């Protein structure tokens, strides 16, 4: 009894022996807590004084309590719910003139299943910031869609097509799952990005902080990622691997930066075309394998092309836009090819 009292005191102040540690662990492990143990603990609880404490942020904790209890979402009924969610879905567009944040809800009348979904759609050439009802946030990349059930707080599953970066709020009781179809990423609380465009063979998961698990389409765990690791799945071959990467660089797109690190021109072209919503054609096979480094921040497509042409042996031209039958013009199209005259300079 006296020993236990001393052990509790020592443990509480953070200096304890191995024997003391295990005696306390043993008490906590008991299914039904020991009376004496509870008594000593409550004594300790009562003795806590009102001194300032480091790391205690009352307001922050209160905010998350009241948001989890949905205090701010006063009233009930469908309409209120709709607007409350709409308000939370703030959109920031990185590229001027781009308009196209869209969120909509639809409810089917199926009797058994929870049927209301929210969908965030990011149009081509833009990035969209999103806020989920549980407080998690993130950024959706060009031409991507995120879908989640309206009862999200108790059911943290999002369906992703395209690329998204997530900063997930920790909630041990409710795991956070990102489902792409080919893989599921299971999360506790962490920041990471997932790339899964239906028309691209490779799906990728990059972990910035924390830890995530990747499951295949049979819900079998195939990888556990540590920070600065990337999981890559080749869909057609059904092959996957994990590699070490610079996660900060790979997710820098969320800040409007286009970071290219030793990337093949062919892959670079895919990224540029999504980023700027243009069509890009590479004329020479040789150029497709040419590797390129570069970082662009909020540059226009014309500036980026000019800079690439300065730092690599290429030239580019823009194809004249055709007037289509319905009176609109075709999408911009850029053709890249090797500049043979400058080949020797590089």
């Amino acid at each position, binding site marked *: 009894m006296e020993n236990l009292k001393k052990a509790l005191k020592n443990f509480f102040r953070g*200096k304890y*022996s191995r024997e003391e540690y295990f005696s306390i662990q043993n008490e906590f*492990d008991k299914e039904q807590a020991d009376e004496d143990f509870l008594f000593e603990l409550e004594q300790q609880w009562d003795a806590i004084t009102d001194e300032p404490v480091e790391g205690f942020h009352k307001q922050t904790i*209160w905010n998350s309590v009241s948001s989890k209890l949905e205090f701010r979402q006063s009233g009930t009924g469908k309409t209120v719910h709709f607007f409350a969610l709409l308000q939370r879905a703030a959109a920031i567009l990185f590229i001027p003139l781009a308009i196209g944040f869209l969120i909509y809800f639809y409810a089917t009348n199926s009797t058994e299943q929870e049927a209301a979904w929210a969908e965030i759609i990011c149009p081509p050439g833009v990035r969209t910031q999103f806020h989920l009802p549980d407080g998690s946030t993130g950024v959706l990349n060009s031409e991507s869609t995120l879908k989640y059930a309206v009862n999200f707080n108790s059911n943290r599953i999002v369906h992703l097509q395209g690329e998204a970066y997530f900063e997930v709020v920790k909630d041990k009781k409710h795991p956070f799952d990102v489902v792409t179809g080919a893989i599921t990423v299971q999360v506790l609380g962490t920041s990471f990005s997932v790339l899964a465009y239906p028309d691209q063979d490779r799906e990728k998961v990059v972990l910035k902080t924390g830890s995530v698990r990747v499951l295949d389409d049979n819900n079998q765990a195939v990888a556990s990622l540590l920070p600065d690791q990337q999981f890559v799945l080749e869909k057609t071959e059904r092959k996957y691997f994990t590699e070490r990467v610079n996660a900060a660089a790979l997710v820098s797109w969320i800040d409007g930066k286009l970071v290219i690190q030793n990337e093949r021109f062919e892959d670079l072209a895919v990224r540029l075309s999504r980023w700027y919503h243009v069509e890009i054609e590479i004329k020479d096979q040789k150029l497709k394998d040419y590797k390129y480094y570069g970082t662009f921040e909020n540059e226009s497509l014309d500036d980026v092309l000019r800079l690439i042409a300065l730092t690599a042996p290429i030239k580019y031209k823009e194809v004249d836009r055709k007037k289509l039958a319905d009176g609109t013009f075709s999408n911009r199209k850029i053709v890249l090819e090797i500049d043979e005259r400058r080949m020797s300079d590089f």
Partner: protein
Amino acid sequence: MVKSRSEKELVDGLKQGDKKAFQSLFDQYAKRIFVFAKGYLKSNEEAEEVVQDVFIKVWNVREAINTELSFKSYLFKITFNRIREFFVKQSRENYYKHEILDYAIEFDNRTEESIDYKSLLDLVEKYIDQLPPRQKEIILLSKKKGIPSKEIAVLLDISSRTVEKHLSEALKQLKKELTEDHIAGLLFYHLFLDQKKK
């Protein structure tokens, strides 16, 4: 001026769904819960989570609260249960550190009682962190996450034999460092003796 309400009035208000009363109780007890939880969980983040969970629970079961009993004592029980869950989880997650210490150090009665175990646990963590990246990655996957060597081999695309080799190298290194640092680990013993002399 707003007349301050007694705790009994606040709990009555809470029972009827008065959010102001709920917030006053939060203001009054959040810090106590935080300090208590932090004492046992040693983490600001988890202590914060305990405070959140306790108040969410209090709100959700507010109608069943017995106003005749001490509210403080009632909060203690909820807080204890939540801390217990976290503690058990933590000790499961930290199991590998005890395991490594057990491997590296031969504890006897004296060391059981006198080594500052908290510092020793921190030390293991620090030394693991200082291992070469590959060894660190593999020892964490194996010991912390309990993934079998064969699966680690697949995960990292190397042979099982290489995994085993990294693992034994890592353990050997940890054992070496931990013995060298035995003296630092004994600090608690000396402090303890000094206190008694006074």
